[in-house]
């Protein structure tokens, strides 16, 4: 009897070190990152390349020079804006896969306004402001459609959103190859905007401090709305338990629609800034996959708006860094997508393990 008890304590102690490692939030996350890196290393090694060299190239590609760093920051703007918008839909328990199309609609609406005002007396600054506002309206409109289909048509927002992404693609293709194509050429892009409609850029780079400022302000604003207001709390209640919230008097349908609209506003803002701040044209693929990537960043951020900023930076550094792999190591740049995916899967996996262990621990204590 004594023997078994001693053994039991020993097993418990050994178990506890292991469980602590897995249940502590920080070590759990570290383990997840190590796991993701391990998987990526194996995959790179399978492709006959040196993993360390690959990561060195990626680091150089994103942070080695002022030029590349400003490019990373410039690309960080749309990604963090998309992700911060998604915080609303994630909070209310919805999957806004339609982000990508909403960004495109924002870009189309913004460009449309500038097109109308080109050649008129109105000052550049006013037109840019109007373009940004109209872009936000465009994004919100496209998101509202998905929300209405969900609320009144019973169409799951995943399929509604995807469908509208492809429709936005079609609208974009139609415009840039049709009515809005520059005279003579059809290369999937409109004429370049007049310089007065560009957001000012830092000399010698593509970085627009205005766009960067808007992105940082948006992160702060959304954090305040979601974490510091009654509205944010109610939205969270809708996401956590839709039925109870409804019974407690929250108009859940209206809140879900509202979260779509708010998300769409930021998607539209993203698209408008892509036009006036960076691309200066309307072109096919202007949304750049930021909507799809934003969903992954959002998943990692786990509805903590402030956390989106650093995670988005890591993700965008991976994407930008991988662009040079083709030239230096003859590897495909899609490696960044593989790393990002592995990272999210491993984090979800370790979160599952952690939950399993903590729930079991609680159960044992209760029993």
């Amino acid at each position, binding site marked *: 009897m004594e023997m078994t008890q001693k053994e039991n304590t020993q097993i418990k102690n050994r178990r506890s070190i292991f469980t602590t490692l897995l249940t502590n939030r920080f070590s759990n996350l570290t383990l997840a990152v190590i796991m993701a890196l391990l998987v990526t290393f194996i995959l790179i090694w399978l492709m006959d390349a040196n993993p360390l060299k690959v990561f060195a190239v990626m680091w150089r590609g994103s942070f080695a020079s002022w030029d590349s760093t400003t490019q990373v920051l410039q690309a960080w703007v749309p990604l963090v804006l998309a992700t911060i918008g998604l915080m609303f839909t994630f909070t209310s328990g919805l999957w806004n896969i339609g982000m990508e199309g909403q960004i495109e609609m924002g870009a189309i609406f913004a460009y449309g306004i500038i097109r109308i005002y080109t050649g008129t007396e109105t000052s550049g600054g006013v037109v840019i402001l109007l373009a940004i506002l109209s872009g936000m309206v465009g994004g919100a409109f496209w998101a509202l459609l998905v929300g209405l289909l969900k609320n009144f048509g019973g169409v799951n927002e995943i399929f509604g959103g995807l469908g509208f992404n492809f429709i936005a693609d079609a609208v974009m293709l139609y415009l840039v190859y*049709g009515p809005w194509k520059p005279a003579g050429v059809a290369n999937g892009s409109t004429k370049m905007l007049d310089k007065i409609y560009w957001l000012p850029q830092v000399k010698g780079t593509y970085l627009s401090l205005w766009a960067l400022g808007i992105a940082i302000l948006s992160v702060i604003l959304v954090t305040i709305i979601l974490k510091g207001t009654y509205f944010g709390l109610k939205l969270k209640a809708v996401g956590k338990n839709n039925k109870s919230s409804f019974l407690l008097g929250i108009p859940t349908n209206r809140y879900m629609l509202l979260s779509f609209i708010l998300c769409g506003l930021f998607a539209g803002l993203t698209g408008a800034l892509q036009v006036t701040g960076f691309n200066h044209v309307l072109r096919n693929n202007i949304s750049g996959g930021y909507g799809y990537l934003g969903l992954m960043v959002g998943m990692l951020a786990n509805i903590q708006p402030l956390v989106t900023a650093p995670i988005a930076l890591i993700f965008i550094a991976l994407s930008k860094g991988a662009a040079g792999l083709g030239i230096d190591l003859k*590897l495909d740049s899609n490696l960044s997508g*593989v790393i990002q*995916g592995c990272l999210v899967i491993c984090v*979800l996996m370790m979160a*599952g393990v952690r939950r399993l262990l903590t729930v079991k621990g609680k159960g044992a204590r209760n029993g």
Partner: protein
Amino acid sequence: MDSSTISSIGSIFAWAGPVIFAVIGETITERAGVMNLSLNGSLILTAMVGFAIATITHNFLAGFLAAALVGALVALLIAFMSIGLKQSQVAVGYVLAMATKSLAYFMGAPYVGKPVILLPVIPIPFLSQIPLIGPILFKQTLLTYFSYLLIIAAYIYIFKTHQGLILQGIGERPSAAYVRGANVNLLRYIYVGVGGAFVGVGGALYSLSVKTWNGQLSGFDGIGWIVLAITIFGGWHPIKGALGSYLFVLLQYLGIVLQPLMPQVNSRVLQVAPFPLMILALLFVNIGNTDWVDRTLAGLPENVRRTIAKVLRALNTRQPAALGIPFENE
């Protein structure tokens, strides 16, 4: 009908092969109560794996087996994350849809530009001699014939066998199936794996008979999402799902045929046509499930209400009740 028209109608059935395999695979998976949202990525990944392995080994069978294995592994990862670790199936499926697509392009890059290899067409003796139907249905590749058989086999298995009844049970009322002695979670793993393997065969069939692996697969990217929608539209029924698949491929085909009539419109605009139709189809099959329709109908005169309700009910599909919900035996 001249021979070129016949062969192009025949090609619709050949193109539909990959979609059929994927739709049946997803139907089985979702019938078991698990949603494999990764299809868009796993189809592209298995298309790459099938082509790469068949190119290396000079053996089609090896290519298909490897693709089936990869498809099953991706699906089992979702099952493990959901059943074992209680993570959201939507979240895991979405991430895998993105990650496997990137993985396909990353690992498949060296195989871009390798010589095209296509499954041989094997006409079935006698049957291919039937006028009209023969050359359309029975002058196909072996795997296309399998796709016909799979539809019927899946239908019989799900609705006419005891095992199929249990499959429905673990997706509808897992606790009842459990009480009846079914090992719910083990069965879910098995069916998710089998469904994933069918998806894998579908992916390989695309790169080995429809279009070769070219590192982009522009016509294929997006089909995974359509497959998921067709599964819903088909009401988780293999035959209705197959009809949906043929309809979808027919529409795609018409998009290409009608393109020359509208030269001013970019060719990729018309290829988007299936997506708004997908939304409309989902709207029709789901709108009967919403509260406001119920409320509105209640206020209408009796005979009008009955007619509308009948139409809605005929269109309506209802998903397996336990779809996406992990099972815990207390």
